[in-house]
């Protein structure tokens, strides 16, 4: 307990002193997760909205695939991207393995189904009433989709937060395709594993708490910021 206390204290000191190595891994964690979540949103929100709004033959099968991919084991996502990017893989020439780009790619694979699936569920249920009202009021297809998304915002918010949480807390995929290389691909979760293996449990735990605190701040920012954006209307 005493060592936990002292290592928490030393972590706080490191944070306050602007320790370069610590900030490096925190920043990389944020960069990778935010990039992956953003790309996941750009892909998943439109796709999920379409899936929620329209019926078509074979839709059931697509839904089941999305639900299955929502539970894709991170290690499996890692292996897939690893094989694609490895020297002998189809994309080996890009030399992306063990780079932050590879980590983002693997996480996109993890978060996109989550955002798609949860957006689809959020939109469904709203879609009949609001889509028809919007269309009847003279909305184009795009305008109608945007109005439906606005009405489903609470659920889509949950999708984004869940995806971001998954991304920043995930270790299996980033470890595989990133390799936990110091100054290059080391992030918070891979550091925690490293410190645990070295027996520095208190340091690992403290890093975990920092991770949680950062998550808390980011989520607060997301909830306040995105909700405000979605509620924005021209005031009179």
């Amino acid at each position, binding site marked *: 307990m005493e060592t936990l206390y002292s290592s928490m204290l030393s972590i706080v000191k490191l944070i306050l002193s602007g320790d370069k190595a610590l900030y490096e891994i925190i920043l990389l964690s944020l960069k990778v997760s935010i990039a992956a979540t953003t790309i996941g949103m750009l892909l998943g929100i439109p796709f999920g909205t379409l899936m929620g709004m329209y019926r078509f033959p074979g839709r059931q099968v697509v839904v089941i695939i999305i639900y299955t991919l929502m539970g894709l084991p991170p290690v499996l996502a890692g292996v897939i991207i690893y094989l694609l990017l490895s020297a002998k893989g189809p994309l080996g020439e890009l030399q992306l393995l063990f780079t932050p780009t590879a980590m983002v790619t693997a996480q996109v694979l993890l978060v996109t189904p989550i955002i798609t699936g949860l957006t689809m569920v959020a939109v469904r249920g709203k879609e009949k009433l609001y889509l028809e009202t919007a269309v009847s*009021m003279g909305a184009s297809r795009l*305008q109608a989709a945007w*109005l439906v998304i606005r009405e489903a915002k609470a659920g889509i918010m949950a999708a984004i937060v869940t995806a971001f949480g998954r991304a920043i807390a995930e270790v299996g995929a980033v470890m595989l395709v990133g390799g936990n290389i110091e100054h290059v691909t080391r992030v918070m979760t891979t550091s925690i594993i490293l410190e645990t293996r070295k027996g520095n449990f208190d340091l690992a735990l403290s890093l975990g708490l920092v991770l949680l605190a950062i998550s808390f701040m980011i989520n607060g920012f997301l909830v306040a910021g995105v909700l405000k954006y979605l509620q924005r209307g021209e005031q*009179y």
Partner: protein
Amino acid sequence: MVPAFSLNGVIVEFNNQPVLDIGELVFDDRIIHAVIGPSGAGKSTLLRVLNMLQKPTQGSVTYFGNPLPYNGANSLAARRSMSMVFQTPAMFSGNVYDNVALGLRLRDVKTKEVRAKVFQALETVGLTDLTKRSAATLSGGEAQRIALARALVVNPRVLLLDEPTANLDPGNVTIIEDVIKRIPHETGITIIIVTHNLYQAKRLSQQAVFLNKGKIVESSSTDEIFNNPKAQETKLFVSGEMVY
């Protein structure tokens, strides 16, 4: 004069069951039409067909002489020339002002004009003091009047009203009926109103259609339907003796 709508052999089926089966029906321009009939007769379905929300399984509908475009490039323009008030109106999140302004904003009307038009529409339904209220907090009757304001604000060529006074107290029914009565004279538009209230149909409309079980039983002037009905079914219905 070219009629607003003209229906020919329109059939709407759900799960292979016809709920609307209309041989021929014409809605003349610039007057008020009432659609009456018992619950489940297909009245709302008929309005949805006219509003292009429900494509008929069979048959054709013309709109001012041209085929009603259920999809394709022309459908947006046709839709933007009409307004519908739903039986249970849905309000978008945001305040009342935003809800009434929505149709104008969707049509890219300039912000300055939007403001004036929204206040005018709210004044028409007597709810200017609700502008800043969250639309989610409206009572059923208030929502219905806001929905009417939302429909009127875009100056539609055709106004489709599905039970627009169903949730209102008698005082407000009179206010809304007065609004509806004034519209065709002031703007020259066509109104089709679905109502359970036979007196309302009598007070407002010049033409009336009596629907039962998806079929037209009788369609003529309101005066004829109420005072000199041809069909036995119509007689029973307008005298309130029909059992269904």
